[in-house]
């Protein structure tokens, strides 16, 4: 563990990412303490510029709502949707890829055709269609994002399982009389964890981008304040009130960047045998 940490912390970008992400998480957690009135309430007259009014550091929006409060509450939905949709995508992709890679044959063929199908469909368009037709709620948004994000997981897990199942410890487990299920769950998958974790951290970032893009198009849960919604609502007044779109966008960039940096750090720390120079 300390070995892992020392490799991780050698990557300065990863540490920066960790600090940024921790900040976003803390703000999301204490949002109700910072802004007890919530993000929807009108607090002042509309279109107050940032850094000009006491107590409203980022100004007010078109309806006189506090932009800073919107950002703090928006962090909650971004992180929540990012995390949960990634977990759901893993729950689809890991078993499918593992079974395909371990059993091979027609199971593999069928699973990979299915995966390929979902990879061919333009994934943002599919997410739009799913959310629009199922009505935008937190659940439908999370599900839609999971449905468009699992195929790379399935492919990665399949490739890992395929190469691991040729290793000697799997032969040994077979000789010891372990059932296929126990070998897959107890022997192979634990060894495939590190690339899955790296991919998952990058998927959370992508999921946050997807969620914000959907909300920007008006496909956010109408009861929940989100960064994408804030930008979408301010789109038409960009000429007169730039800060309404600027700050939420900056929040997205910082959060997504932090997650990507952490993902790279994890990759360096968990796969030290990989040539650092060759890292993409």
């Amino acid at each position, binding site marked *: 563990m300390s070995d892992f940490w020392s490799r991780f912390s050698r990557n300065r970008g990863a540490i920066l990412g960790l600090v940024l992400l921790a900040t976003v998480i803390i703000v999301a957690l204490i949002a109700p303490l910072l802004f007890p009135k919530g993000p929807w309430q009108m607090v002042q007259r509309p279109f107050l510029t940032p850094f000009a009014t006491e107590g409203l550091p980022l100004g007010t929006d078109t309806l006189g709502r506090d932009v800073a409060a919107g950002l703090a509450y928006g962090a909650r939905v971004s992180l929540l949707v990012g995390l949960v949709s990634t977990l759901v995508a893993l729950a689809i992709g890991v078993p499918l890829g593992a079974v395909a890679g371990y059993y091979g044959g027609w199971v593999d063929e069928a699973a990979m055709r299915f995966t390929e*199908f979902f990879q*061919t*469909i*333009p*994934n*943002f*368009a*599919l997410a*739009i*269609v*799913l959310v*629009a*037709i*199922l*009505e935008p709620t937190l659940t439908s948004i999370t599900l839609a994002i999971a449905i468009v994000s699992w195929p790379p997981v399935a492919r990665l897990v399949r490739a890992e399982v395929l190469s691991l199942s040729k290793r000697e410890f799997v032969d040994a487990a077979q000789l010891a009389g372990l059932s296929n299920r126990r070998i897959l769950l107890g022997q192979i998958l634990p060894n495939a964890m590190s690339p899955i974790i790296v991919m998952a951290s990058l998927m959370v*970032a992508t999921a946050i*981008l997807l969620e*914000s*893009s959907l909300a*920007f*198009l*008006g*496909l956010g849960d109408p009861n929940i304040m989100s960064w*994408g919604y804030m*930008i979408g609502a301010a*789109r038409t007044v*960009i*000429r007169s009130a*730039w800060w309404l*779109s*600027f700050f939420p*966008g900056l929040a*997205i*960039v910082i959060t*997504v*960047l932090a997650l*990507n*940096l952490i993902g790279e750090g994890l990759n360096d720390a968990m796969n030290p045998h990989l040539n650092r*120079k*060759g*890292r*993409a």
Partner: protein
Amino acid sequence: MAIATTVLGRLIKAAITLLAIVVLNFLLIHAAPGDPAAVMAGEAGAADEIFIAQLRERFGLDQPLYVQLWNYVGNIIQFDLGYSYRQGAPVFDLIMERLPATLLLTLTAFGISLLFGVAMGVAASARVGRAGDSIITGIALLFYATPLYWAALMAVLVFSVWLGWLPGFGYETVGGGFTGLSRALDILKHLILPATTLGLFFMAVYTRMTRASMLEVAQMDFVKTARAKGLPDRVIRRRHILRNALLPVVTLAGLQAGQLVGGAVLTETVFAWPGIGRLMFESLQARDYNTLLGVFLISAAMVILFNIVTDLVYRLIDPRIGATR
């Protein structure tokens, strides 16, 4: 002959994929809350019981589900994607009218992202570990994390509102009365901001991929040979490393380019670009499901077509691809 079999195989696969998407569309319509006839009646602006019953009969919605599916697939094979009551036109016509603008936008964005992505990747790999490398990889990381639509909005703000260099709205100057070359120039001016912002994300992807690929190829033995026989660094980089490093990048780029069609929804919304992405946004707002699903199907078809074309082009350029299968 081999090419012909490949094309046939790919076309059959494409047809199966499209059929699966059509079935998915059909299931989605039926998964939608509310009765399709009531939704249609709402779109047409009338909602009394008799009218809904008439619609149900006219569109076969009173038939069993498998008959409906059969009819739906039959219609789509004849390019009948349904009728948009909101726009007062058949969906297929609406899409075809808007398709050229989207093709122009996405293909330009693809070209920009590939060109600049590869250039930046090559530049970074030539300075690996030094300041120039850090700056380029830093920029790529930033673009990689920037939401497409936000980059578009900020570009409008800076280059259109503040600096006034480029138009931030539309496809051409309304009432400009341009013809011929001056019209093409006018469209080009309108194209720069949307195409660049749409290409930013993939530019970042290609930068990272090119850099990694260049560094990987540089380790290979034939590069050492070239160096040993005294070729100048510049020549090795261009003729030996770049040519071999480019192949995986371009292959993957071709496969991913289809995703630009999805991103076009965002870009076209911001720039009021009259393509199918904008049409999708309009149909979202109007809850016009026929149009929404029609655009979805056509964009998937575009992705599949694009994949087949790139695949064939690579087979022609590099006979090694596909030779092992």
